[in-house]
Structure formats: structure tokens, C-alpha cells
């Protein structure tokens, strides 16, 4: 049978495919690989792409995730420098930087790695928190708060042993949760209630006080305004009397007439309304009823 070119190509293709499966492997973008030869470390590859190897069991390829992993440490009680108990959990972001060491320590098991990192994290947390007073975490004086510094100190405490002993780089660390023992939280609630009650009394008394001041000022201002107005009115009347006094000079021409006219006016004004008069025959002109007639010679 003549050799068929298509069959040949197909056969070659199959050889290439099988050859690739045996002699090549991929390092993915998110991987860092270790190649061992007869179980002994040969090389690490952290650049993605196609790589060549000898087929198993000569060489074996271990694939590790080179991305930043993260986990959360347990929410545990620790003690500050001023002997206050706080409950803190932290989170950690880490990645493999020495895959050979990582392989030797954990056989590539990330969960195992995190379990091993936990004591490091706990020790760093306890050690750093133990060097700081509670006010470095929580304080009314904002300048005292050293939240970031504490996180940096914990990170700095973890990084060297993690890198040296386990081949991992701890890239980030943060406090995830801060709390107090349960019994203390009950006391905090009591204090919060007491503080609020104090504020209630303060706001009530402040309101009363301010209102009283406003009312007193208003009363004072009112008295001042009215007193001033009365004084001005008296002054105006005084000036009017003074002006009127100039007119009194004319009465000096005949004081007798002036007095007589004033008395007539008083008599008329005072008996203007609701007057009851008791008269007898001596009161003119009623004396005429007795037959008396007053002439010029009898005028008084």
C-alpha cells in the first residue's frame, strides 16, 4: 500500500501531542512551579509559559498558587501593657516566595501552611499588643492612637521567620476585630447609660438656664424701654409747662380777675356730671323766691 500523506501527518500529529504531554508542562500566570528529579529539587519556575521536562517518574512538577493568599486568625484574648484584656483577631495576606523551601516544609499544602503560620501570627499579636497600652488602640486623644503602628509592628514581627522558615512572604496584616470580654461589655453598657443620663440632665438644665436668661433679659429690656418712655413723656410735659408758663404772665395784669375766672371754671367742671345740689333761700338766685331782689347796692 502506498504511504498516505494525510495518514503520515496525522500520525506525526499524534506523536507531537503525546510527546508534548510527556515532555512539556505549563506554568500558568497564577502559578509558581518546582521541578524535582528523582525526588530531588532541580529548579523553580516563576515565569508563566511552556516548559520542558523529563517524563515522570524521572521528573515531577509541583504547582503552587503564587497569588496572595489570605486567612484570618482566631478571635482570641490577649493582654495590653496596662493589663487590660482585649480580644483581637487579625487577617494576613501572604504568598510563596521560596517554592523550594515551601515544598520541603509543607509539601505544597496551603492549608497546612496557614495552620503553621497561625502560631507565628498569634505570637506576633500577643507580643506587640503586650507592648502597647490600651490607649494606643482606643483613646479620646486621637494623637495617642497607634492603630497603624501596631499593625506594622505585627507585620514586621512575622515577616522574617515566615520568610526564613517557610519560604513565604507576609505581604499585609490588619486588625479585623477588636472586642472586650463579655463581662466588661456589660459594664460598658452601664457606663454608657449613666453617661447618657448625665447628658439628659445637662441638656435639660442648660435649656432651662438659657431660657431663664433670655426671659430675664427681656424683662429687663422692657423695664428699661418703659422707664425711658415715661421719663421722656415727663420731660416733654415739663417743657410744655415751661412754655405754658410764659402765657401765665398775662394773668398778672389782674390777679383778682384771673382767680375769679379759675374759680368759675373749677365750679363748672366739678359739677358737670351727676351732681346733687342742696340749695336754700340764701343762695342766689333762689333768694328771689323769698321776694328779695338784689340791686347794685347789695352786690357782694
Amino acid at each position, binding site marked *: 500500500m502506498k504511504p498516505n500523506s494525510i495518514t503520515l501527518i496525522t500520525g506525526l500529529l499524534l506523536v507531537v501531542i503525546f510527546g508534548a504531554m510527556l515532555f512539556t508542562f505549563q506554568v500558568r500566570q497564577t502559578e509558581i512551579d518546582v521541578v524535582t528529579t528523582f525526588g530531588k529539587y532541580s529548579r523553580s519556575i516563576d515565569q*508563566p509559559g511552556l516548559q520542558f521536562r523529563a517524563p515522570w517518574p524521572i521528573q515531577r512538577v509541583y504547582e503552587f498558587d503564587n497569588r496572595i493568599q489570605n486567612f484570618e486568625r482566631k478571635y482570641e484574648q490577649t493582654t495590653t501593657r496596662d493589663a487590660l484584656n482585649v480580644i483581637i483577631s487579625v487577617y494576613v495576606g501572604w504568598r510563596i516566595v521560596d517554592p523550594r523551601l515551601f515544598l520541603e516544609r509543607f509539601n505544597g499544602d496551603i492549608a497546612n501552611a496557614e495552620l503553621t503560620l497561625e502560631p507565628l501570627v498569634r505570637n506576633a499579636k500577643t507580643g506587640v499588643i503586650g507592648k502597647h497600652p490600651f490607649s494606643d488602640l482606643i483613646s479620646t486623644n486621637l494623637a495617642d492612637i497607634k492603630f497603624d503602628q501596631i499593625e506594622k509592628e505585627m507585620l514586621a514581627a512575622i515577616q522574617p521567620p515566615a520568610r526564613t522558615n517557610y519560604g513565604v512572604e507576609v505581604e499585609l496584616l490588619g486588625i479585623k476585630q*477588636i472586642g472586650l470580654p*463579655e463581662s466588661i461589655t456589660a459594664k*460598658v453598657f452601664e457606663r454608657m447609660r449613666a*453617661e447618657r443620663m448625665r447628658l439628659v440632665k445637662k441638656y435639660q438644665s442648660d435649656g432651662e438656664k438659657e431660657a431663664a436668661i433670655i426671659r430675664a433679659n427681656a424683662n429687663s429690656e422692657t423695664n428699661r424701654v418703659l422707664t425711658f418712655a415715661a421719663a421722656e413723656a415727663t420731660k416733654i410735659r415739663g417743657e*410744655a409747662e415751661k412754655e405754658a408758663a410764659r402765657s401765665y404772665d398775662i394773668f398778672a395784669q389782674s390777679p383778682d380777675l384771673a382767680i375769679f375766672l379759675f374759680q368759675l371754671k373749677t*365750679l363748672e367742671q366739678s359739677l358737670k356730671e351727676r351732681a346733687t345740689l342742696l340749695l*336754700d333761700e340764701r343762695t342766689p338766685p333762689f333768694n328771689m323766691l323769698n321776694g328779695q331782689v338784689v340791686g347794685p347796692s347789695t352786690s357782694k
Partner: protein
Amino acid sequence: MMEDAGTQALSDALSSSFRIVKALMALLVVIFLASGMFTVENNQIAVKLRFGRPVGVGEEQRLKPGWHWAFPYPIDEVVKIPVGQSHTITSTVGWYAISPEEEAANVEPQPRVSMTPGVDGYALTADGNIIHVRVNLKYRITDPVRYAFHFASITNLLQHVVDNALLYAASHYHADVALYKDTIGFSEMVLGRVTQIIDDQKLGITLDPSEVRTTAPLDVRPAFDAVLTAQQQGRTRVSDAQAYATSLTNTAVAFARVISNDGVTASNQIVQNVAAEAKSFADQLPSYRTDPALFKKRRLAETLEKVFSNAEEKFFIPARLDGQPRELRLQLNSGPPKPKPEPTAKP
């Protein structure tokens, strides 16, 4: 002869089989190549990894929405990353314990007199008080390559970051300020902290408008409400006093004007009355000088006429013939009292 026929038949059969196999193989190759076609949706971008390495550099690595082709796995691998759509992460450490049923029904749980670690979430404030904080962080992926290829479990990491941010902000704020007086500032500090960590770690995301809620612990909330009520009552008292002061002052100013006007009126009357009397005197003086006695009698008679006309009651009591004094009994003020005019209201 028989063997030749049999061999020929076998050869023919094998030849047919080989043709079928070749056709099948060709079909498999076509299917193999066609299986590399894929689409990238509108809210996605894709990255093609060839032998594990991204194809292209920079922006070229990102395949935009549409039809694309890649060599089938294991040569090429396509990673699709959602972009554009908003994702939400909710904090886990700052809120009180609530069951899903209570949350769905929007019902608050029973107040608790203390906070159980690991069960109840809360944040400690700068003044050592306890508040609850919940953050609903919304974000979009803006650097999908960084987002997908540099962080494992990035949503977990974001949750840690959000929890850290709310603790950080609470530690810098007094409880009353975070709860009522400056909720906007508190929210800005939380989101600012998240943004700072996102930028420092280059997480490849951008924040969308997010929600930060604060509330007092359920057990002490009545005490906080009492403070708000007391503040309101205090403001009301001050407001009432100010209204009283305004009213009183306005009335005083008006009454002062009345007093002043009365003074002016009275002074005008004084001046005018005296001037009128002086003129009347001057007019009557010549008559008086002519005959003072006659003048007086005449004027007296005129005045008495008016007086007697105006008097309400007049009694003429003649003398007793025997010259003895007469006893007289009269009931005075027998009529109703005269109504007095109403005085002007004084503040």
C-alpha cells in the same frame, strides 16, 4: 483463486475502513479547532493564556466583548473576568447578631445586656463606648488582570479590609459623633481607609457609592434616645423663651410709643389750654376793668345757670318757720356707677 478473492475483499474492506477513519479524524480536527471559539459578554473582559502566559502586552491582553477564537485547552485557556457591574461586600464584625429570618422581616432582635465574643459584632469607639457599624461596600473591577491573577479569594480579602476600616474609623470617633453628630465624616473615614488599602495593595478595584450605617447597642438605645429628646426639649425651651422675649419687647416698644405719644398729646393740651385761657382772660379784661362787680355777678350768674342745668338733682330746702335747724336725710349715689374707660394694656 478463492484466496485471491478473499484477500481482495479484505483489502477492500480495510481500504473502506481507513477512508472512514480518515474522514472521522478530519472531522475531529475540525471540531477540535472549532471548539476554540468563544464570546465575551458586554460586562466581561477575557484574558487568553497560551501555555499559561497571557497573550499580548498591556491592554492587548484584555479581550473586549465579542467573538474570539483560541486554541483549545491545553494550548490556550480563556479566563473571563466580570467588569463594569457593581459587586457588594458587607462587613461581618460590627453588627449585632441577627437571624436571617429577623433580617428578612426587618425586625430587630431582643436587646442583650452584654456582647458575646464571636457572636455579637460591635466596634469600640475612641471614648471606650460600643456602637454597631455595618458597611455595604460597592465596587467595580477596574484592573481585571490584577484582580484575577494576583489575589486568591479576593472577596475574602476585601471583607477583611472593610472590617479593618470600620474598626479604624470607630477608634477615632466618639460614640455620639459617629452615631449622630458627624455620620458623614465617619462614613468618609471608613471608605477613605478602604480606598487607601485598595490603592496600597493595588487590588484593581474602584469603589462605588457605598453605605455605612451606625447604631447604638439595642440595650442602651433608649438612653441615647433620651439624650436626643432632652436636646430637643432644651431647644424648645430656648425657642419658647426667645418667642416670649420677642413678644414682650415688641409690646414694650409699642407701649413706650403710646406713653411718648400721650406725653406729647398732654403737653400740647397744656400749652393750648393755657394759651386759650390767656386769650380768654385778655378778651374779658376790658369788660372787667369797666365794672368789676357787674362783671363778676354776670359771669357768676352765667356759670350758675350752667351748673344748675347740669346738676342731676336739685333740692331747695327752705328754712323752718320756727327757726330750728332742719334734719335732712338723702340717699346719695343711688344710680348705677358710671363705667370707667378701659386703660391701655401695659406689658
